[in-house]
């Protein structure tokens, strides 16, 4: 029950991030097109695509926490006794909870504190809104870490494990 709800939350994160990168890939070329072909160099493509990139970053990274794709050093924890490894695992979860709480609380503070300012090239857009992905992504991360703390890693789940044979990396 919890897991299937979190499966949906995971897919939502991936969709938000995926649609963000899709929108970015349309907006930037549109900016170039309007500059050279229409001759109306508009100001909005740049800040709007940055907004999408921030969404991509924080929701995508939250999904990465559930999928365990984040870069981490495992060679030491892989070589210690199982008991010690378990303790290290709990500590990792604890620190991840602390950091996601930081993202939620201080991220929300940042949003509230900048609600009165507007983005320079987008007079209708409060700066606070553009930072919303930070606390929201933090909240998603928190949910995924809590799930891992109580039920163990979920990387085997069907929604995550789309190609089991290769572990990927961004380099």
């Amino acid at each position: 029950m919890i897991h299937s709800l979190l499966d949906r939350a995971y897919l939502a994160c991936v969709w938000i991030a995926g649609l963000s990168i899709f929108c970015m890939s349309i907006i930037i070329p549109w900016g170039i097109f309007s500059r050279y072909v229409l001759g109306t160099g508009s100001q909005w493509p740049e800040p709007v695509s940055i907004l999408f990139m921030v969404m991509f970053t924080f929701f995508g990274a939250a999904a990465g926490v559930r999928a365990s794709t984040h870069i981490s050093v495992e060679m030491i924890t892989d070589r210690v006794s199982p008991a010690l490894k378990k303790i290290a695992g709990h500590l990792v979860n604890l620190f991840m909870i602390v950091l996601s709480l930081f993202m939620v609380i201080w991220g929300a503070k940042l949003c509230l504190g900048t609600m009165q300012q507007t983005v320079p090239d987008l007079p209708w857009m409060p700066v606070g809104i553009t930072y919303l992905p930070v606390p929201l992504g933090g909240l998603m991360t928190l949910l995924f870490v809590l799930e891992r703390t109580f039920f163990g890693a979920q990387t085997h789940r069907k929604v995550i494990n789309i190609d089991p044979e290769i572990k990927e990396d961004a380099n």
Partner: protein
Amino acid sequence: MDAFILLGSFAFLIVIGVPVAYSLGISAIVGALWMDIPIDAIMIQIAAGVNKFSLLAIPFFVLAGAIMAEGGMSRRLVAFASVLVGFIRGGLSLVNILASTFFGAISGSSVADTASIGSVLIPEMEKKGYPREFATAVTVSGSVQAILIPPSHNAVLYSLATGGSVSISALFIAGVLPGLLLGFTLILLCLYIAKKRNFPKGDPIPMKEALRLSAEALWGLMTMVIILGGILSGIFTATESAAIAVVWAFFVTMFIYRDYKWSDLPKLVHRVVKTVSIVMILIGFAAAFGYILTLMQVPQQITEGLAALSDNKYVILFAINILLLALGTLMDMAPLILILTPMLMPIVKTMGIDPVHFGMIMMVNLSIGLLTPPVGALLFVGSAVGKVSIEKLVRALFPFFGVLLFVLTMVTYVPALSLWLPGVMLGK
């Protein structure tokens, strides 16, 4: 003491297995608490760290690379390379390296390079009598070219880590000659091994077929012309060129080649999301970490420490190379670029080393780290794609490490290799 708190807590978190990105964030908070800096400042740094237009280039280049690798562009580059060098003795190993040169010129993803070219060529090489581990070793070491030859998202990361003081275009142009030198030296090595072990020649491809394969590959290679031409002529910025690369790769794959299923696209995006967002958030947390690092004056201390070692810049560069090689065996490229660049930039500038040149040293050096145990991204992907054990692969890689160290030495001690071409093309 300040530095000990920051770096010590970071090291502790890494060792127990907290992901590098989050370790940076937590230790930045610890550092801020220790120095009585309000934690709000950390959040501001994180938000500002990811709020940069030039950053967009990174997801774009990786997405473009993924489309090219999975959508059949890399397969056509392999075919084109076999037209050019397949008939020579050891042909397939040369094809492998040359295909990576081409792939590197349209994408900066060495992992995508290994995964896509390896899955085509390793089975084929084995069929023709090359040992599997040799085929895999050729693939992974050839893939390093992708990091050096423009476009390269790692160069974008470095430019960002210098605080934007080094332009992305200068780094792109600077990577051309080191990348080609690597490709050329690898080809020489393969020619030598092929002769010694009597590897087979490939059949020459008939003229008509060769022309067709070349024409198909040209669609892909146009990406390079668009990216570099666009940047050099000033028609668009590096970030914009990355977006154009995505659109072009998509267009060629879906409308010219037409052998990629539309229904596979969501999966491709899912993979890109999982792999790129973790680098992006790393950038945010590294910004906060770097901020505390600077407040604690750690870079100055490093500068003083290294300057006390010697006042000869070549000795300093040697020491830095050893440091980078050691750290590179343990950690991935992206976090090291983001963490070490701000720490080392002051000493680099004090010693009169051009930051563009230093960027190239870092790229070559850290790419070697991708091939070395215990932690090496290319090693892992190569062993999965080639279905060889890490131990066997590492043993097969030994002569290739020699080539990589040779290129590293050349790039380190011959600054012109990195600086001549940008000087000519960008006039600085």
